[in-house]
């Protein structure tokens, strides 16, 4: 049985609008819609799907390759899990959430640059409405302003590319850019800047602090993990499969990514609040992911994006519940918290250590491969910076985790339950979902070859992918 990928966009959209007539069962629409989407993803086959029967470059196409398929799977599963966990929080945001799901799926699937702009705008408006559910409307407004400036830059760059190459189809655009690469640098930079707002690249990430520093268990995973991951997947698609970027522009944009990496890690190191650390760490990781994308490491950037997406999802989700239970996210006030909540503590710890790239977790093998590949290409300053920033990340992540376990001599137990024992359904659901995701990070950490092979399969034939040299448990390259 095969299903058309357009269903992952159309189904949530239909449910988002029909839900208006059935307000009493709005939550059911959200959960049903996201679960149906997961089901549909399992029946999608790779290929090119024409919309309305018009062939490219005149018609819009949906491009399903292994990259899109794996991304869709992770995104839809995480989204569905979140809707099950925080159904009540999303009660008044059912339509926005379903529209967000449709737009994010569209972003991953579309093979048309203007269609991508439309999905970007829909996704941004839905994200702004979701962010405003914290009732801090001025922060949501700031996010909106940043997002509108970003989409203006994107559209400006897009129309300049259209003027030069006469097409909006991604595959055709790539062919034409290969044939005549000169003169498109300004347009590519404009598009990069436009997307930089959404992927939280400095100096365009000013909105992130306002939205995520007070994020609850709904906004945090949604904006910090799901949205961040989806936008980075789009960035990976454009700057690996579509645009032909000149070395000078690559260097310029790489500097921006490096500033983000260093600045994000420094800000996270300086912070004493859990959610601030997570949001700045996310900014830094965005810098690293873009650095890999720009330098042609398509497979490594892809696996890093998915792994970070899952780790940040678990950590933002738990930090939301922790603030609900403890009333604060200042680390000094949360010492020993995980002693009363060992399972959730394990999930948070595994996600944090994987994010920091410590051994036994999948993040370690990803960073090891990044460093190895960079060194093999005779690049030394870049691996040095990545190594130092990873060290800084390891220090603040361990400091946070050890504090939460209170492993020092002075043993202290807060007695605070992260999830109220009376709320049995939520308790089991949160335990199950966070533990499954954390265990996935451990399993992939113990069997990295499987994860690395999947990434290689998804991105190995990517246009800009550097020769694959993957280190897993079996040892060196060429295995």
């Amino acid at each position, binding site marked *: 049985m095969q299903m058309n990928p357009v269903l992952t966009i159309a189904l949530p959209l239909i449910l988002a609008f029909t839900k208006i007539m059935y307000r009493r069962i709005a939550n059911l629409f959200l959960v049903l819609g996201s679960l149906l989407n997961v089901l549909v993803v399992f029946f999608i086959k790779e290929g090119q799907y024409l919309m309305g029967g018009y062939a490219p470059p005149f018609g819009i196409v949906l491009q399903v390759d292994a990259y899109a398929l794996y991304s869709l799977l992770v995104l839809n599963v995480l989204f569905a899990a979140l809707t099950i966990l925080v159904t009540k929080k999303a009660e008044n945001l059912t339509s926005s959430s379903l529209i967000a799901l449709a737009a994010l799926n569209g972003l991953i699937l579309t093979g048309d640059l203007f269609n991508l702009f*439309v999905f970007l705008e829909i996704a941004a408006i839905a994200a702004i409405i979701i962010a405003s559910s914290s009732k801090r409307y001025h922060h949501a407004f700031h996010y909106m302003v940043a997002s*509108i400036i970003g989409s203006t830059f994107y559209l400006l760059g897009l129309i300049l590319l259209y003027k030069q190459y006469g097409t909006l189809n991604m595959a055709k655009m790539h062919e034409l850019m290969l044939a005549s690469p000169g003169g498109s640098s300004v347009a590519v930079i404009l598009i990069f800047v436009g997307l930089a707002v959404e992927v939280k690249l400095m100096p365009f990430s000013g909105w992130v602090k306002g939205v995520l520093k007070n994020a609850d268990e709904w906004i945090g995973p949604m904006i910090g993990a799901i949205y961040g991951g989806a936008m980075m997947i789009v960035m990976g698609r454009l700057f690996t499969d579509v645009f032909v970027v000149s070395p000078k522009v690559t260097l310029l944009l790489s500097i921006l990514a490096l500033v983000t990496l260093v600045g994000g890690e420094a800000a996270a190191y300086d912070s004493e609040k859990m959610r601030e650390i997570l949001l700045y760490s996310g900014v830094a990781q965005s810098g690293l992911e873009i650095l890999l994308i720009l330098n042609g490491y398509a497979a490594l950037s892809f696996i890093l994006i998915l792994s970070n997406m899952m780790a940040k999802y678990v950590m933002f989700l738990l930090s939301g519940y922790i603030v609900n239970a403890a009333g604060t996210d200042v680390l000094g006030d949360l010492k020993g918290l995980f002693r009363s909540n060992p399972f959730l503590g394990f999930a948070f710890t595994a996600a944090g250590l994987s994010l920091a790239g410590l051994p036994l977790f999948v993040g370690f093998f990803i960073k090891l491969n990044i460093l190895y590949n960079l060194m093999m290409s005779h690049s030394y300053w870049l691996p040095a910076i990545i190594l130092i920033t990873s060290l800084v990340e390891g220090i603040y992540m361990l400091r946070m985790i050890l504090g939460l376990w209170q492993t020092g001599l002075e043993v202290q137990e807060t007695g605070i339950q992260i999830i109220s024992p009376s709320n049995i359904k939520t308790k089991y659901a949160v335990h199950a979902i966070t533990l499954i995701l954390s265990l996935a990070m451990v399993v992939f950490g113990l069997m990295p070859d499987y994860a690395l092979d999947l990434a290689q399969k998804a991105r190995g034939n990517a246009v800009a992918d550097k020769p694959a040299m993957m280190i897993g448990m079996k040892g060196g390259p060429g295995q």
Partner: protein
Amino acid sequence: MMELLSLSLLFLGMYGLITKHHVLKMIVSMNVMEIGLNLFITSLGYQESHLAPILSSKFPSSALNFVDPLPQSLVLTSIVIGVGTTAVALAFAKKIYMDYGTLDLEKIEGRL
């Protein structure tokens, strides 16, 4: 000439959006910026002495010298999106005023 004028309108709007702190002034700047961008896109599709891309009894063939219709259709979509974002922005303006009694974002940040 048209391209330059529309681009200056775009950057004028962007300047207002970045430098102003009053929510309504920012929304007006946002609209100026969007109009500048839409005009720029339309001006790129325009060609001197070409016809409007509409088939009629007077111009029944697509082989005639029509201007490129794609930028115009892009602008249509862009206008619709612009209206949507303005509506959401105005809703936020109302909520911000109800919560803080002012539309000046600097004053609001100062209070927090």
